[in-house]
């Protein structure tokens, strides 16, 4: 390797910093939208029931979907969370492992499934 680990850290620190902040901003953006749609939903049901009691966000699938919390169980959101876990583990090869996490799986018997002529 041409550069020392310290040189790389110094050189790429600002790049990593900027990209992590960007990921944080995406997550915050999702949170804000989820919170505001939960609020709108609570108002709506207060109007509907007149009870003044906001519904629990996990009360029913529809309630949770319309309250915005459904996004947290969306597979794409889960993938981001799992990728972040890879970022903070102490194992090597993070880029390849995240790429595989974000890929469709390979099925070795695909040729039989497609009934392609074998060579």
């Amino acid at each position: 390797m041409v550069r020392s680990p310290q040189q790389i850290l110094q050189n790429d620190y600002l790049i990593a910093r900027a990209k992590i902040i960007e990921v944080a901003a995406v997550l915050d953006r999702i949170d804000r939208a989820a919170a505001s749609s939960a609020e709108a939903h609570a108002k709506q049901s207060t109007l509907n029931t007149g009870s003044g009691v906001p519904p629990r966000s996990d009360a029913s699938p529809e309630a949770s979907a319309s309250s915005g919390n459904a996004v947290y169980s969306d597979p794409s959101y889960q993938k981001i969370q799992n990728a972040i876990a890879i970022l903070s583990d102490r194992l090597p090869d993070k880029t390849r492992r995240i790429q595989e996490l974000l890929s469709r799986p390979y099925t070795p018997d695909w040729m039989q499934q497609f009934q392609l002529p074998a060579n």
Partner: protein
Amino acid sequence: MDYIDPHIHMVSRTTDDYETLAKMGCVAMSEPAFWAGFDRGSVESFRDYFRQLTDFEPKRAAQYGIRHYTWLCINAKEAENVSLSREVIAMIPEFLDAPNVLGIGEIGLNKNTRNEATIFLEHVELAVKYNQQILIHTPHLEDKYQGTRMILDMLTQDSRIDPSRVLVDHVEEHTIREVLDRGFWAGMTMYPISKCTPQRAADMIETYGTERLMANSAGDWGPSKPTAIPDLILELKQRGHPRALIEKIVYQNPNQFFQQSQKWKSIVDEVNR
């Protein structure tokens, strides 16, 4: 520094781009046939496209001292139209003797469907029949891992295919090892957003070495940067890599791979005179 862009779609670029590339050191390029952004309606549309690739583009490039080569096929996105694909495959031999045609490409998969695999195999038959080199497109994003492995399965099960005459493009961190281990050439395609960057290409060079590895810009009609190779050269220089290593990636490797075609040889000799 002189360099070769092994995968760039110049039909999508302006003449100003040719000028910029020439100023940045591009001496030769190879342009695989690809998707126009919409599905073409007939075989005649492909015939005109192949005329553009074999006649008009080399002339446009020559104005700036750049040698232009090309590869012919119908791309994987249009392979769902199996009958049109077969008409195009039957028409391709009309152009194989053109002086800038290096082989069949970029063939590959897009969504990894049965029709795509069928048309891929028919292109491989064409390449074998006419003893052509092959340039491979691997799918993007979440389909790349599965699709690259499917393509390698199809190529390695065919004993007539010599992997040293096949270039597999758009490799990334999770596909590069298998491509190189199986004896193929590998190309890293650098995009400004969403896919591989010059920085990550430099990382892969540091991880996997320089054998049978090259880099390209794609330079297509989408968000892409035709000057991505000069960006990689700068990145490698800034990391302190020697000139010899950089030249191997951006000039000698593509030169060595393409030299397997007689057509390339004569023209690069001319460049070097």
